[in-house]
């Protein structure tokens, strides 16, 4: 019998796979994670129409990466990439990527290209594009937060 996972739960595996692939850590999970494009489409749609709360998807993502393969290296990388303390790196990463998915800054098609599993020029272009989207998604939020604090 096929085990069904909530769509937003899938996202953590998928994001972890992307980050793991970037560092070429053991990526068996990566190939598996990308098998079901439809699950990611459901997640993206749910985030966009509000049926999947951003906070829930982000927290699931954080938990899955933390429990998965090589979270320390992802933490190290994202901590300096986003300039956040290591203990907040996974949360910041997941919040940024979920916001980017919700805003369609990370289109499903980008992940579909990546899902072919070949880090050819198209796949590497998409990895670069996804990292860029995560960076600006995070920066937008932190900038807004600073502005909000200053206004108070």
């Amino acid at each position: 019998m096929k085990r069904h996972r909530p769509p937003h739960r899938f996202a953590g595996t998928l994001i972890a796979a992307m980050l793991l692939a970037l560092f070429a850590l053991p990526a068996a999970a990566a190939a598996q994670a990308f098998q079901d494009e439809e699950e990611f489409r459901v997640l993206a749609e749910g985030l966009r129409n509000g049926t999947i709360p951003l906070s829930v998807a982000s927290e699931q993502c954080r938990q899955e990466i933390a429990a998965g393969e090589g979270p320390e290296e992802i933490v190290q990388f994202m901590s300096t990439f986003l300039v956040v303390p290591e203990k907040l790196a996974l949360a910041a990463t997941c919040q940024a990527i979920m916001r980017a998915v919700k805003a369609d800054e990370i289109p499903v098609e980008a992940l579909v290209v990546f899902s072919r599993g070949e880090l050819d020029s198209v796949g590497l272009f998409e990895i670069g594009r996804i990292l860029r989207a995560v960076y600006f998604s995070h920066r937008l939020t932190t900038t807004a937060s600073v502005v909000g604090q200053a206004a108070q």
Partner: protein
Amino acid sequence: MRSACWVTAAFLAVLLAGCASGGHSGNLADVLNDARAHPENRLADEVACERSMNARTGDFAYKAFFAGLLSVPEAEGGRAFCSAIIEAVIAGDLSQAEQDAFRTPSEVRGRAPVGTLLRAVIVAHERLYGQQAQKPSQAQSCSCGE
């Protein structure tokens, strides 16, 4: 999934550690050191950076990766990366110590230096892009006056 040799982290590490790959004049670490010491050499160092990258890429499609990261056409990925990393070095966004971290094996240094470098490259690229975007409007405002 293809792995080990195709990783951005390893690619950057090899470039910045200045590991010899056989007889090319200069490597990226030397180029960055020169830019840091002699900012006036910026243009020459950008060219040397591209030459160094082209000489060492192997099958890593670095232009495609940086094109995605910096939001430029793929053919411009190498040039955009080199302009940005030279800018980052000159502006002090990528320190000597952060650059030298790539000399240490990744098992020891961890992945933090890669995040630092990619961030510095994005920040520098956005600054350069912003400066270029301002130039036409400045030129326009100058031409409509006295």
